[in-house]
C-alpha cells in the first residue's frame, strides 16, 4: 500500500472487521471457551457446575491410554485417507479434465458421493460391509470364499472406514484439483509436447508443480476434516470393534454427550485442535517450499 494515503489501511481494517468478528465468534470464542473449560471439573459429579481443578484434566489426558490410542488411530485414518484421496482425486481430475462427450454429467455424477450426508453414506457402507448378508460378503460367497468380518476385525476395520471416507471425499478433492488443472493454460502442456515430453513427464515436470497450491489446499482442508472425523465412525462402527476405530472427535463426543464430563471433553477438543494445528503447520511448511530449481 506504499504511496497510498495513510487511512487506506484503516479503511481496510474496518472493512475486514465484520469478517474478523464472525471468525472470532464462530471459531476463536468456542475454542477459548473450551480451553477454559479444560481447566475445570464439570461433570455429573459436580452437578455439571464448573469448578477449577487446575491441570487435573490435562494430567489425566497425558496418562489416558485411550486418548493416545485414539490420537494415533485418528492420525493413521487421516494420513491414509487423505493420501489415497489425493492420489485417486488427481487421477479422477485428470480423467475429468480430458475433453470428451458427456464430461458434464460425468462431473455431476462424480460429485454425488460427496453430496450425500455422511450419516446416510455410513449407513449405506454399514450394509455393504454387513456380515453375512451385505453385497461384499455375497460377492465373497459367490467365489466360494468364507464371509469376512469387515466391521468385526480390529486389525482391519479401520481400513474399511478409510475406504468409506475415500469413496465419499475423493470427488471433492478431484473437483478441487480439476479447478487447478483448468487454471493451467493448455499451451504450457502443448509446448512440452513439442519438446517431446511423454504424458508422465508432463505430469511430473509441469502439472504437479503447477497444481501444488491446489494440492496444498486440498491437503489442508481434508486433513482438518479427517482429523475431526465423527459421523462416519459414529454410524459405521461406533468406534468398534474393541475401540479400534474410535476417533478423537468420537471420544470427545462420548465424554460430553454420554458421560456428561464436559471438563474432560473440552480437554480432548483442545488437544485435538492442537494436534490439528501442529499437523497443518507441518504440512504447510513442507508444501510452502518452492520447487527445486532444475539448474543454476
Amino acid at each position, binding site marked *: 500500500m506504499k504511496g497510498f494515503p495513510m487511512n487506506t489501511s484503516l479503511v481496510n481494517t474496518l472493512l475486514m472487521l465484520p469478517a474478523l468478528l464472525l471468525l472470532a465468534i*464462530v*471459531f476463536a470464542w*468456542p*475454542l477459548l*471457551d*473450551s480451553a477454559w*473449560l479444560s481447566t*475445570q*471439573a*464439570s*461433570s*455429573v*459429579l*459436580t*452437578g*455439571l*457446575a*464448573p469448578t477449577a*481443578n487446575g491441570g487435573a484434566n490435562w494430567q489425566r489426558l497425558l496418562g489416558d491410554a485411550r486418548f493416545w490410542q485414539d490420537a494415533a488411530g485418528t492420525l493413521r485414518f487421516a494420513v491414509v485417507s487423505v493420501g489415497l484421496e489425493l492420489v485417486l482425486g488427481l487421477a479422477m481430475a485428470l480423467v475429468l479434465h480430458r475433453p470428451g462427450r458427456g464430461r458434464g454429467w460425468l462431473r455431476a455424477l462424480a460429485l454425488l458421493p460427496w453430496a450425500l450426508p455422511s450419516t446416510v453414506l455410513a449407513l449405506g457402507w454399514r450394509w455393504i460391509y454387513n*456380515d*453375512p*448378508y451385505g453385497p461384499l460378503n455375497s460377492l465373497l460367497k459367490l467365489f466360494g470364499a468364507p*464371509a469376512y*468380518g469387515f*466391521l*468385526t*476385525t*480390529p486389525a482391519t476395520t479401520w481400513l474399511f472406514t478409510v475406504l468409506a471416507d475415500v469413496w465419499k471425499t475423493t470427488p471433492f478433492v478431484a473437483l478441487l484439483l480439476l479447478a487447478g488443472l483448468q487454471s493451467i493454460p493448455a499451451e504450457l502442456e502443448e509446448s512440452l509436447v513439442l519438446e517431446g515430453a511423454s504424458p508422465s513427464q508432463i505430469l511430473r515436470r509441469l502439472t504437479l508443480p503447477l497444481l501444488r497450491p491446489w494440492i496444498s489446499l486440498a491437503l489442508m482442508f481434508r486433513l*482438518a476434516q479427517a*482429523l*475431526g472425523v*465423527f459421523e462416519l465412525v459414529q454410524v459405521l*462402527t*461406533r*468406534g*468398534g*470393534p*474393541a*475401540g479400534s476405530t474410535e476417533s478423537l*472427535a468420537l471420544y*470427545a*463426543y*462420548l*465424554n*460430553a*454427550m*454420554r*458421560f*456428561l*464430563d*464436559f*471438563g474432560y*471433553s*473440552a480437554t*480432548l*477438543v*483442545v488437544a*485435538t*485442535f492442537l494436534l*490439528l494445528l501442529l499437523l497443518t503447520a507441518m504440512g504447510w511448511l513442507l508444501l510452502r517450499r518452492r520447487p527445486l530449481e532444475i539448474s543454476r
Partner: protein
Amino acid sequence: MPGSGARRRPAPGAALAGLMLGLVLILLPAGLLARPVAAATTVRVLMPSPFVDSTAPLVASFNREHQDLRIEVARGPLDTEAMSDLAIGGLLLGDTAYDMLLMDVSWTAKYVAAGWLVPLEGLLGDDALEAMVPGARTGNAFGGHLWRMPLTGDTGLLYWRTDLMAEPPRTTTELEAVSRRLQAEGKVRWGYVWQGRQYEGLSCVMLEMIHAFGGQWWQTGSGRAGGQTELDSPGAIAAADWLVHLVRSGVSPAAVADFAENESLQLFAAGDAAFLRIWPYAWREIERGGGPVVGKVGVSTVVSAPGFRSGGTLGTWGLSLLAGSPHPEAAAEVIRWFTGPETQKALVLDQGYAPTWASLYEDPELKRKHPLLAVQRQALEQGPEVRPLTPLYAQLSDLLQRQINGLITAEGSAADAMAMAQSQSAVLLESAAGQDSA
C-alpha cells in the same frame, strides 16, 4: 475443530459446537410447531419417534376430551442414543422447550445427578408404583426419590423356533446343545444370535449373562457413585467366557460382534438362527415382516446357567418431569394419564408393548389377544436386571462394552478381559470418590 460452550446457565458449556448446533436445529422446528392454544395449559413431551407414532391416536383423543390441558408431542429420533443426544443437547442449553421426556431406564441416575429432573413422589404420591408388577417398579427411583413413571415393562427375552423344538431351553447348556444339534443337522446355519456390537445393547446382554452365572455387575453402596462393580467375580468371568465360547465355537456367528438389534433380528427372521435374544418389540416386527419364520416363533425368558436364576435386562421407557417445567402439576396429570392402565392397555392392544400394571396382566381381553403377555409377566416377576444405578453408568457401560467386544473379536481370555474391565471401573469410581471428597 472448535469446541463450543453452551450458555452457562445452569449447565456448563459443552464441547462439539457442530453437534450441538445440529441438535438445536432439530429441536427448533419441534418448538416452532408448538401452536399455543388460548387459555389451555400445554404440556410438551419429547419422545423417540416410534412412541410418537404409537401414541398419536391416544394423544389426539386426550386433547379432544380436555379443554384446559393439551399434550404436545415432539418427535425425537428413532435411535435410543440419538434420542439421548437430542434431549441432552436441549437440556444443556438450559432453556428446555419440554416439560417431559420419555427416558430409557439407563439414563435415570445420570439425569438426576445433572439436576435435570424433578422428583415425582410429591406430585403423584409415595405409592405411585404400588400397583405395578414388582419388576417394573425397579429403575425408577434413585437416592430416595421417584424420578420417572414407566410406560412400558420391556425386558430382554429369548426368541426360539417352535418348528425346530418342542420346548425352549432353560439353561445355557441346553441352549448350546440344542444349537449344536440343529446346526449339525443342517436345520440352521447358526444357533444363537444376540447383540455383540460395541454399544449399549452389549451391556444389556452382559448384564443378563452375569446374573445368569450367579454374579452381579453392581453392588450398591455409598459414595457419589453409589456403589462398586464386581466384574472380576467368578460369575461375571463365566458369563464373558460363555459368550466368547459361543462365538469361537460357531454357535453364534463371529458377526455378532457388529450386531445391534436390527442385524440380529434380521438374521433370526431370515431363518438362519435357532435362538435370538431381543426385546418384546421384535415379535411384531417378525410377524409383520412376513419372512420364513412367521408363525414358527416362540418367546420365553432368557436362559441361565444350571442352578442359577435367569432374568432379562430391564429396558423400560418412562416419563420424567424436567426441571424448569412451568406447570409441574399439569405435567404430573399428563404423566399419570400417559402411564396409566387405560393408556397402557390401548398400547398393548395396538402395539404389543409390555405393560407395567399388574391388573393388565390379569385382563382377559389382553390375555386372549396378546400372546406375549404371559412370558412378559414371568420375565418381570422373575426379577429383571437393572443396569447399575449410578451417574457414572454410561462410562461403566462403555468400558465393559469395549472389553467384551474386544474379547469376542480377538484372542484374549475372558478372565483377563473382565479383570481389565474391573480395574478400569475401579479407577473410574475411585476418581469419582476423589472428586467427592474434594
